[in-house]
């Protein structure tokens, strides 16, 4: 237990550190991809209203230039003037000129085009002259060409301005597009890098976890026989808390003499063979442990004392049938066992008492001449 206590803190500290790094890389990676999405959304938001502003003006008040519409009415007035034969046409001419005036009388035109104000004055003057029939229709139509010329200049200039604005917009869009492309690439690469780091950290953490689990597994195993050790026995008892269990302690009689006569390799071989035999005999429901030296322990589900008695009896009988040779045995040429057993309800406190009781029972078997078993009641 002391050994495991000394090892646990670094292992868990390392795990915590690894988990922290793993989360850091993961969050950095996700943040990069989130930043990429935000950048794309931001750029889209920038582009969309500009597109709306420049390219979706058809069908509304400023979709067609006011100057174009004004020119259209001036030209209609000219047509009427050229074919005017009845006074009733005057009202139509006046109507067209009024509309032309209204569409030209815009502050932005007055500010940017010097011909606007004189043209408005001319329309005003010609309207009065036409109404009063103080001007020949042909002359009036001719005079209106000055207004048409002004309106055409405005139209062309406005188209140029719009073209310039669209060019500026296109340049700006291209710049934003390049910035978006490069930024996206950088952020994407960063995201991949962070994701790679996260994957690397994940693998490291998994490897460390597996190593820890393997270490823990090894720490619970007896390296010679492959069965559980004393720590595993305690852990298993705690894991089955509340269950009625039987604890069987097994000791090989005269094992020192066996080693002395046949050598330690043979002694190790005997331990392995006995472990296999005991496991096979006790069955799948039982678990076998090596407590050290020549001492084994077994845990079996045990509803009553008779079941424990039968298990011990069969253990001794099976070993006798196996007939493992023991040349140095004082009274017998075969390996014999001393077995002490006890039934208990699995708990940490009861296990200590049970172990003590089984050990004493085993000791009594030893005193009584070995090669037998006793169930402590």
């Amino acid at each position, binding site marked *: 237990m002391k050994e495991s206590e000394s090892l646990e803190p670094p292992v868990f500290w390392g795990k915590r550190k690894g988990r922290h790094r793993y989360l850091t890389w993961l969050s950095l990676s996700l943040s990069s991809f989130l930043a990429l999405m935000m950048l794309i959304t931001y750029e889209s938001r920038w582009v969309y209203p500009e597109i709306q*502003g420049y390219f979706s*003006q058809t*069908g*509304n*008040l*400023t*979709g067609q230039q006011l100057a174009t*519409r004004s020119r259209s*009415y001036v030209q209609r007035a000219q047509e009427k003037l050229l074919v005017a034969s009845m*006074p*009733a046409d*005057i*009202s*139509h001419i*006046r*109507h067209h000129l*009024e*509309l032309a*005036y*209204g*569409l030209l*009388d*815009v*502050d*932005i035109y*007055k*500010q940017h085009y010097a011909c606007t104000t004189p043209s408005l004055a001319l329309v005003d003057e010609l309207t009065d002259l036409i109404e009063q029939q103080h001007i020949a229709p042909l002359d009036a139509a001719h005079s209106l060409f000055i207004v048409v010329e002004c309106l055409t200049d405005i139209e062309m200039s406005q188209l140029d301005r719009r073209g310039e604005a669209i060019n500026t917009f296109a340049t700006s869009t291209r710049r934003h597009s390049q910035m978006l492309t490069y930024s996206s690439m950088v952020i994407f690469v960063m995201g991949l890098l962070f994701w790679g780091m996260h994957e690397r950290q994940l693998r490291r953490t998994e490897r460390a976890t597996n190593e820890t689990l393997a270490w823990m597994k090894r720490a619970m195993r007896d390296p010679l026989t492959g069965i559980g050790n004393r720590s595993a026995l305690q852990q298993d008892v705690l894991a089955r808390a509340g269950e009625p269990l039987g604890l069987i302690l097994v000791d090989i009689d005269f094992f020192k003499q066996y080693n002395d006569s046949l050598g330690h390799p043979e002694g190790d071989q005997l331990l392995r063979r006995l472990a296999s035999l005991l496991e096979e005999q006790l069955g799948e429901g039982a678990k076998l442990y090596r407590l050290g030296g020549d001492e084994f322990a077994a845990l079996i589900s045990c509803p009553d004392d008779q079941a424990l008695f039968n298990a011990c009896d069969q253990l001794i009988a099976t070993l006798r049938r196996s007939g493992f040779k023991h040349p140095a045995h004082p009274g017998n040429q075969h390996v014999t066992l001393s077995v002490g057993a006890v039934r208990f309800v699995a708990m940490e406190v009861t296990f200590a008492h049970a172990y003590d009781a089984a050990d004493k029972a085993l000791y009594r078997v030893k005193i009584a001449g070995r090669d037998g078993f006793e169930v402590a009641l």
Partner: protein
Amino acid sequence: MNVAKISAACWLILIVSWLPIAAYAQDLTIIDGEKSQQLVLSDVKQQADNTVTLFDPYQGREVEVRGIEFRRFLVEQFGEVPPALHFTTWDDYNVTLSGWEDPNWLMVVEEDGEPLTLRSRGPLRLVERDIGTRDIAKLREFNDWIWMIRSIEAQW
């Protein structure tokens, strides 16, 4: 006698020549499905009870206008504010727009004390009392102002 006849003829010609002008821009057609109604502009003008000073970006200056809250006008004409309205104007401009629940819209009949005419983009004009934070240099931001309104058709 001849002079009297010539004088009468001149007056007749003058009256006849002015009749279509009088017909121009003197009424407003309200269309609600199959039903069509001509409103005399003088009657509409009498309802104008809102006088406000606002900035007209098309004129580049502040003007004092008098008019009718357009939402109230629509309720009076159609019973409620229609989801969309189709406008026809004296310069043959056609447009359908929605969102007329906003009390910000004013139907103007008079500007700086003078009745609106075609040359001042009347006789009826729809403007917004408050233009908020819009850029007054960008006329396209005011392209839902309707000038020279000739007819209003409800679209349900």
